[in-house]
Each structure stands twice: as structure tokens, then as C-alpha cells.
């Protein structure tokens, strides 16, 4: 059950491989759970051979994933087999506030459930990602000043009351890390380091298939690793953090006098068209990211480093210099340099991670009709 739920959909043969059970045993279990209405099977072909695709039955209900970014909100709905049924993005104000943002998210979830002709009670659980450290046990934002207007807000309580379902909250980069590990560029890898580079810089670590949260949710905050002891003051109160070198406001600020008012997307597009200034800014950002990632690699030695967030759309312009610096600054290994790749899920990584934790929550709370 857990294997099907985590991967959304897989064949009986894959299921045997993942669970370590014999194909005959898997076949029997699948048959039993299908007749109980928990699993759904459909014929498919894999490598030219007939196979039986196994998913969770649709009638088990819906889960919602919510991702709050610095300037936008994204909500997705999926069924119990992780098939995304609705996906909606919405811009948010700079320094948007928790009360307005959570209200908009709740309304959006409710309207999207309705648009699928589903009843409100079919929503089993909601997963939420926010761009700040989160104490996952209490569902509260665990820092002050990192996300203005959200300090100490009990996201779980507010949304659970609005929507009447269990709500799980985590840092958005953590959810991106989880999604890339389960469904994306890091599938099959352990350990996984994920860097989310957009307006701000976040990170997530997955060890043994589980997210590392640390004491109070600050684990993986690579944006606040020191790059220059005498560098500029960061919004976290520290000095010379990675984010003060590669955060979007900094990159855009460097181009303001020569290129005028640009967005991050403009910078990436112009760099790809060959604009020297934009290429240089991304090249330097890649090197700074490389320094921070190398430090992380020396501590954790992950199998793969995945780079997500909007800046990852720059591709090799950013990843090339980053990879070089990571290679230079990590302890040489007989296993060769660590793999540094772009996110496969792109802008959808965080919301997919939110859906995944929602589904995990639904399983744990027994809403799926079985305990996984």
C-alpha cells in the first residue's frame, strides 16, 4: 500500500521489486485489495511486455497541495494515486500576510474541489509549503523575520479550521526535496540534497527516504550558510549569507543600472539569448551556489544535488559553474564527483511535495480506509 501510495502508480513487477515480495504474493495482495476497492489495476505495456499498472482507487478521495511562494500561491488537487486533477496559480502581493494568504488558499481549495464535482468531505488532507522554516510538530512558522507577516503563525490550525481537514505544513524547499526524491530527478537516490533558488534560497535534505527537519525545522537552510564573513547583512540578521549573493533582489539589483527593471525570468531569457551581463550574473551565482553546495556535500556526501526554483531554468549557464566549484571544493572520492542536476519537476516540485505529504497524512489518519 505504502509503496503504491508513495509512487502514485507502478506495475505489479515493479511493486515486487520495491517491496521485496515474490511476484505471486504481490499478485495475490493486489487482487485482494482491488476487490476491496482500495487499489485499481489497468493493463499497460512496459518494455514491450504486458504488465498490470497498479494505482490507488479514485473513489478514495482527494488531497490538496498548497505552495506559498514569495510572490505567488499555487494549489493543486490530486486523487489517492497522486494523479493531479486541478492546478491553479495565483499572484500574491509583496510581503503578503498570513491571514490574507491563508484565506485565499482556503477559498481556492474549496472552489477547486467544487469544480471537480466533489463534495467538501471528499477532501482528506491538505499539505502546505511555506518559504520559511517550519516546526512540523506544531505546524508553526519557526523563525522571526524570514517571512514578514507570517512570524509564529500556526498555519496548520488556521487552515484546518477553515477547511475542516487535517493539514500538514513544511518548509517549501523540504517539500521540493521530497517530491524530487519520490517522483523527480533524484528518484532512486539516497541521500538527496535539494537547493531551491528563486526569490530566496532554500534547501532540503532527504536521508533514507525521510526529510531531515532538525530540532525546530531550520535544517537545510542553505540560503543562510556564510559565504563571506564580512559580507552584507542578511534578512535573517546574519552576515554574508548565500542569499545575499544569489537571492533574486540581489541579482536584479546588480543589473538595475545597466539593464533597468528586469524580472528573474527576463534575466534568464536574456542570458539564453547571449546577453553578456545577464550571463555573468548567472555564472557568478552558480559559483556562489557551488561554494555552499560543496560545504554541504562535505558534511552529508549525498548521491545527488538537485537544483530547483526559478533560477534552475537557466540550465547549464548556472549549473556549469556550480558543478565546477562543487568538484573543486569537495573531498575527492573514488566514487567520482557528486551529480549536480536541474530539478525535473520544475516549478511544480513544491506543490507536488505538498500533495505527497497530504497523502501521507491521509494514510496515517486512516482517511484512506487503510493504515499504511
Amino acid at each position, binding site marked *: 500500500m505504502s509503496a503504491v501510495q508513495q509512487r502514485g502508480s507502478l506495475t505489479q513487477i515493479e511493486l515486487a521489486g520495491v517491496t521485496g515480495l515474490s511476484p505471486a504474493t504481490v499478485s495475490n495482495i493486489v487482487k485482494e485489495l482491488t476487490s476491496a476497492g482500495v487499489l485499481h489495476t489497468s493493463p499497460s505495456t512496459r518494455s514491450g511486455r504486458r504488465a498490470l499498472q497498479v494505482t490507488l482507487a479514485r473513489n478514495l478521495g482527494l488531497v490538496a497541495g498548497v505552495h506559498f511562494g514569495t*510572490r505567488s500561491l499555487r494549489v493543486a488537487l490530486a486523487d489517492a494515486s497522486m494523479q493531479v486533477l486541478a492546478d*491553479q*496559480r*495565483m*499572484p*500574491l*502581493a*509583496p*510581503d*503578503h500576510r498570513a491571514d*490574507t494568504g491563508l484565506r*485565499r488558499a482556503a*477559498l*481556492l481549495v474549496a*472552489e*477547486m474541489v467544487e*469544480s471537480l464535482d466533489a463534495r467538501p468531505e471528499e477532501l482528506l488532507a491538505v499539505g502546505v509549503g511555506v518559504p520559511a522554516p517550519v516546526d512540523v510538530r506544531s505546524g508553526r512558522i519557526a523563525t522571526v523575520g524570514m517571512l514578514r507577516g507570517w512570524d509564529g503563525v500556526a498555519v496548520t490550525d488556521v487552515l484546518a479550521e477553515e477547511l475542516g481537514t487535517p493539514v500538514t505544513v513544511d518548509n517549501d524547499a523540504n517539500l521540493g526535496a521530497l517530491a524530487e526524491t519520490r517522483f523527480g530527478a533524484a528518484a532512486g537516490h539516497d541521500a538527496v540534497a535539494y537547493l531551491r533558488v528563486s526569490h530566496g534560497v532554500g534547501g532540503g535534505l532527504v536521508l533514507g527516504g525521510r526529510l531531515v527537519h532538525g530540532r525546530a525545522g531550520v535544517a537545510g537552510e542553505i540560503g543562510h550558510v556564510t559565504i563571506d564573513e564580512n559580507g552584507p547583512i542578511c534578512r535573517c540578521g546574519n552576515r554574508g549569507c548565500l542569499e545575499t549573493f544569489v537571492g533574486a533582489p540581489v541579482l536584479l539589483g546588480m543589473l538595475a543600472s545597466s539593464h533597468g*527593471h528586469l*524580472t528573474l*525570468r527576463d534575466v534568464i531569457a536574456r542570458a539564453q539569448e547571449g546577453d553578456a551581463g545577464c550571463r555573468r550574473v548567472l555564472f557568478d551565482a552558480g559559483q556562489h551556489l557551488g561554494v555552499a553546495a560543496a560545504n554541504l556535500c562535505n558534511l552529508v556526501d549525498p548521491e545527488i544535488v538537485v537544483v530547483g526554483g526559478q533560477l534552475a531554468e537557466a540550465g547549464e549557464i548556472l549549473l556549469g559553474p556550480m558543478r565546477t566549484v562543487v568538484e573543486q571544493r569537495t573531498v575527492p572520492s573514488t566514487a567520482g564527483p557528486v551529480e549536480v542536476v536541474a530539478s525535473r519537476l520544475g516549478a511544480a516540485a513544491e506543490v507536488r511535495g505538498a500533495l505527497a505529504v497530504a497523502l501521507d497524512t491521509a494514510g496515517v489518519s486512516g482517511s484512506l480506509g487503510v493504515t499504511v
Partner: protein
Amino acid sequence: MTGAPPEDPPGPVPAAAVHALRGVSKNFGGVRALVDVDLDVHDHEVLAVVGDNGAGKSTLAGVIAGAYRPDAGRLLLDGAPVVLGSPGEARTRGIAAVFQDLALCDNLDVVENLFLGHESTRGALLDEVTMERQAWELLGQLGATVPSVRQPVRTLSGGQRQVVAVARALLGSPRVVVFDEPTASLGIRQTAEVLNLVERLRERGHAVVLISHQATDLQAVADRFVVLRLGRVGGEFDARAVGYEDLLAAMTGAALPTDRKSSR
């Protein structure tokens, strides 16, 4: 004032202003709807105009889009004085408006609505296939999710109708797109679609003027704010630096800002 542009030389206008208003006033039967309004509209920028009911927002939209002729003051396009006699004339000069009452024909399908009135301005009738292809192209650029372009618009949702209205405004590639209360009476999903649309227009380089009393919606997409109060400009703010309270204060006149935090 007659149709001839005023004699005096235009005031200082930043080179980037596509469309500018200088000292514009407009009365309706003794009611001063706009008083001495200066306004600059730039490419690649969302200018939000906010104000209470009766602050003059819709009149301002009408002046920018050629629906109302000002009683005093000048309109400048790329720094050159112009007189906009009608919305049609504004449109030929690259200014398109999407007004509150969407003015779509319910019984006609999406393609027919898009090209309604456009055939004659182009001098030649477009064939059905070309029109349908252009319709899909335009809707695709706007990221629209309209099920079929051969569906009567009355069957579409409020958000989808808004997209069709915007698509119609975008035929002929205007430089300035004016929205008057685009999210009023829309649900949250449709509001989201409209705001995404505004962002896409800015990304494509259009100057967007967004007029609304929904400050939360405006703050989500605006680059710059102009607050209207009793027909006058009550304040101008950089959207990145302004808070809801500042806007509210300027709207109600609680504390008129002394320094105009203009972004450019």
C-alpha cells in the same frame, strides 16, 4: 477645447512614458470627476489605480481609453500631444480597454466575438480557418483554458469570458491595455486567472493600467500605485514598498503622503 492639440509645449515626460496625462480635468454636469490629474503609463509595467467609489477611477479609465474627452489638460502619446475622439480612435493608436460590462455577444461563439468589428478595420475579410487559428493562438498566449472556440460565450465562466474580452482587446497588438474592475464579481479561481493574465501581459511588454477598489488583487500584480481621492491624485507609490495601510490612508485622506515615493 476643440480637436486641435493645445499650443503650449508638452511638459517634461520621461522618455519611457507611452501614454501620459497632464493636468487633466473632467466634469459631469457640475460634478468634478477628475481634477488636474497627471499620470504616466510605461511599457512593461502594471500601473494600479485605486480609490473609493466616486474617486474618479472609471472616468480616468475612460479618458485614457478615449471614451471621455477631457475638459482641460493634455494627453501625450510617446510625448506627442493627441486627442482621442473615441475608443475606436484610441484603439488604432494602440490603446485597448477591457471594461466592466464585458460587451461580449452572448449568442455568438468565441471566434465571432473576437473578430466582431475587426473585419472592417482590416479592410479584408479573414477566412474562417485563419480566424479560428488566430483565436487559438491568442488564447494560448494568454494561457486560457477555453474548451472550444466554437462555443457560445454565454456557456463560459466569468473568468473565461474575461479572457475572451482581453483577447479581443489584444487583436492588433496594443501597447496599452486598460482594465476597469476586472475582478469585481468574480470567484477566487477566476480572479486568479485574471491576475495571471495581467502578469503575462506585462511579461509580453504591454503597459497595463489596472483600475479597481480591490487592493489585495492590485497589490498582487502592481508595479506602481496611483491613489485617486475625490478626483485628484492623492499619492503615488512604488508597489514593492507600499503597505495596505498606506494605500488606505491615501484613499481616505487620513494622512496624505508628503513624499511621493515614485519608482522611476
